[in-house]
């Protein structure tokens, strides 16, 4: 009897010691496909995106994942930003990584996967703004930002109130292109917005030009002669540069507003610094990567110091961080609700559309709260944008959490 007791107590002691040596909770590892483009149109900025994604996942695994018993592992796949490549890659990704959520890069991913993801039960997070044509219910590729037109509408309303006094419509002109569905959609959407909000915006002209124009002096002169007091340039980087050069050639200084993919920090290099961009704006539901000491900047510095982030403080780094923060917060909320070892793509999707993620959980990398729903593939409930401007040769955030107008589908 004594021997049995001694054996049992010895076994119990051994078990407790062994248990103490283990981590607080066993980790369940989930692989996250990170669709990337290192060889197509995003090749030059993909290192910024990729570094940001890796750093946020590394931070989250240590700060939150360990407590929840969840570890995320990013698996990068180069899709060349090509629909056919994504379509042929995806079934393999699905069977090898068994993802519960993924990171998307843009249009080709959406085109290739949007119809099959509800069957595959894998939600994906997209960092770019959405488009009017994507505004359909029950989508599983969710953009962290509203449509480009929502972002432009929010800026125009802010500009009309703060710079024009809110007493008369602001005269706007927009440059875009018919060469890409997304750019064409921006044009149609802004025209519809201006028509529906004639007391806020008076659309002088919607100028459709090449996505890579050589010179826009004639077109810009025409719209300025017609009284445009704000130029919208949300399409390509090359258009943004051509508009700015035309403005310089004409010796005018009418403010231009850019978006995130052609932001002030993107244009800084091709324009030879920020001085030529003095007074111009960027407006989007992302962080303004400016000179301000902000919560977002401090979070970025933390990622650089402790999580190996090498990408510079740049809009595309911010886009990667913002996108991945939404992904980890979705996993986090789902793990809290359902348990870290029980996550499925369906549970994560349900969490995404049922949860209102507060702005503070994104450290300033979003426009505001993010509240997805099944009605649209982007946050439709009270999305916000941030506005940056070059002031004194530096990019400054001049407005935060600017409300986005309610728009009818166009």
């Amino acid at each position, binding site marked *: 009897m004594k021997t049995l007791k001694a054996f049992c107590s010895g076994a119990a002691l051994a078990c407790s010691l062994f248990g103490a040596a283990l981590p607080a909770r066993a980790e369940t590892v989930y692989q996250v496909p990170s669709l*990337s483009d*290192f*060889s197509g149109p995003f*090749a030059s900025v*993909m*290192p910024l995106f*990729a570094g940001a994604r890796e750093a946020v996942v590394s931070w989250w695994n240590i700060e939150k994942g360990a407590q929840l018993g969840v570890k995320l592992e990013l*698996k*990068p*796949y*180069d*899709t*060349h930003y090509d*629909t*056919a*490549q994504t*379509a*042929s*890659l*995806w*079934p*393999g990704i*699905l*069977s*090898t990584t068994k993802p519960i959520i993924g990171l998307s890069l843009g*249009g*080709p991913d959406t*085109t*290739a996967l*949007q*119809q*099959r993801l509800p*069957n595959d039960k894998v939600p994906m997070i997209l960092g770019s703004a959405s*488009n*009017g*044509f*994507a505004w*359909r219910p029950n989508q599983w590729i969710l953009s962290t930002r509203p449509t480009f037109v929502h972002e432009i509408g929010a800026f125009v309303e802010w500009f009309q109130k703060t710079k024009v006094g809110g007493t008369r419509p602001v005269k706007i002109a927009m440059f875009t292109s*018919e*060469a*890409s*569905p*997304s750019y*064409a*959609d921006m044009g*149609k959407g802004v025209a519809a917005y201006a028509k529906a909000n004639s007391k806020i915006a008076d659309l002088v002209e919607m100028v459709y030009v090449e996505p890579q124009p050589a010179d826009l002096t004639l077109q810009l002169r025409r719209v300025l002669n017609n009284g445009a007091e704000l130029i919208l340039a949300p399409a390509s980087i090359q258009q943004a540069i051509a508009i700015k050069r035309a403005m310089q050639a004409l010796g005018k200084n009418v403010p231009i507003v850019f978006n995130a993919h052609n932001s002030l920090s993107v244009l800084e290099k091709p324009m030879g610094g920020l001085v030529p961009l003095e007074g111009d704006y960027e407006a989007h539901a992302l962080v303004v990567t400016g000179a301000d000491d902000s919560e977002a900047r401090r979070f970025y510095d933390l990622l650089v110091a402790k999580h190996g982030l090498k990408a510079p403080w740049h809009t595309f780094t911010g886009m990667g961080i913002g996108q991945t923060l939404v992904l980890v917060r979705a996993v986090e909320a789902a793990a809290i609700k359902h348990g870290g070892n029980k996550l499925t793509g369906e549970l994560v999707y349900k969490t995404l559309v049922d949860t209102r993620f507060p702005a503070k959980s994104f450290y300033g990398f979003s426009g505001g709260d993010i509240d997805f729903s099944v009605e649209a593939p982007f946050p439709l409930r009270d999305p916000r944008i941030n506005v940056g401007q070059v002031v004194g040769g530096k990019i400054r955030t001049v407005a935060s959490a600017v409300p986005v107008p309610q728009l009818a589908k166009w």
Partner: protein
Amino acid sequence: MDPSGIFFTSHARDRALVRTKRQAATLALLIAALVIAPLVLSDRWVSLGYAMFITMIAVIGLQICTGYAGQVNLGQSAFMGVGAYGCALLLHYPQVPIILALLLGGAAAALFGALFGLTAARIKGFYLALTTIAAQAIFQFLVLNLPGDWLGGAGGLHLENLELLGVNLGNDRALYWLSLATLLVMTGGAFGIVRSRHGRSFEAVRDDDVAAGMMGINVAAAKARAFLVAAFYAGIAGGLWVIALRHVSVEQFTLFNSIWMIAMMIVGGLGSIVGALIGTVLIQLAREGVVSLGPQLVDLIPSAGQDIVFASMNVLLGTIIVLFLLFEPKGVMHRIEIGKRAYRLWPFPY
């Protein structure tokens, strides 16, 4: 050239596509292997398989137009798009059978392609290439600017789950078999075309269109027919593509895709249907190889960084293609033919 000791005693046997029992057995084995492959291969290979079969159909069409008829065609991707939209529009009506939608999508593409074939009657070479690029621009312009409720505008058209003979085509394996069956039919049809009087007129026009005209061939009609056939093949491929993705939008059919198809045709060998198939397999496998190798190398050498690894993979792909064209500009089929001839003559030198 037939193997030594093989002689035919009837015209029908002499004209046969599959000439010996051994060839027939090999072909049957290959088809059987392709049919059972999805039962043993991983999902990745199955999806790669149907993507390849669909591309092969479009490249065979291009081969007939460019490789056989000598008409430069940079609009094959746009023709594929027309077929995809045509098929998607018809599949919105549940009573339209999928096969009929595929055929009518192909017919729509063929009509669109024939328009460019007519221009080929007047121009050739670089000018024709430029005209076929216009097909790409016109296709994009029409889709984006026609009323949104016609072709879906920038958002494209969406299809819900499709069924063929009670089989759900949302399943990758079902798509594989559908694409394979279509490819077999289209390949058989292509051999029929190139061995017919139309095929011979294509080759005559390619080799010398003035001489072909003097021999009584209607050169303009032959050129238009070449485009019509190429666009029909592309249209069928586009229809299969829309069935696979259940979504069609304009940005899926770019000029870049047409250029890849030309690369597949050149690597396989101009003027050979089998060359078109082999070229597609080689290029697609090379592309998939570098795409698959990338993540593994990133895991293996994390210090190299994703950007370096993935960029290197594409440099590798480009290098393979350039080296291949340097050392075998006539395509893989040329090399295969040399090998086959040497094997059949062995041990004699000629």
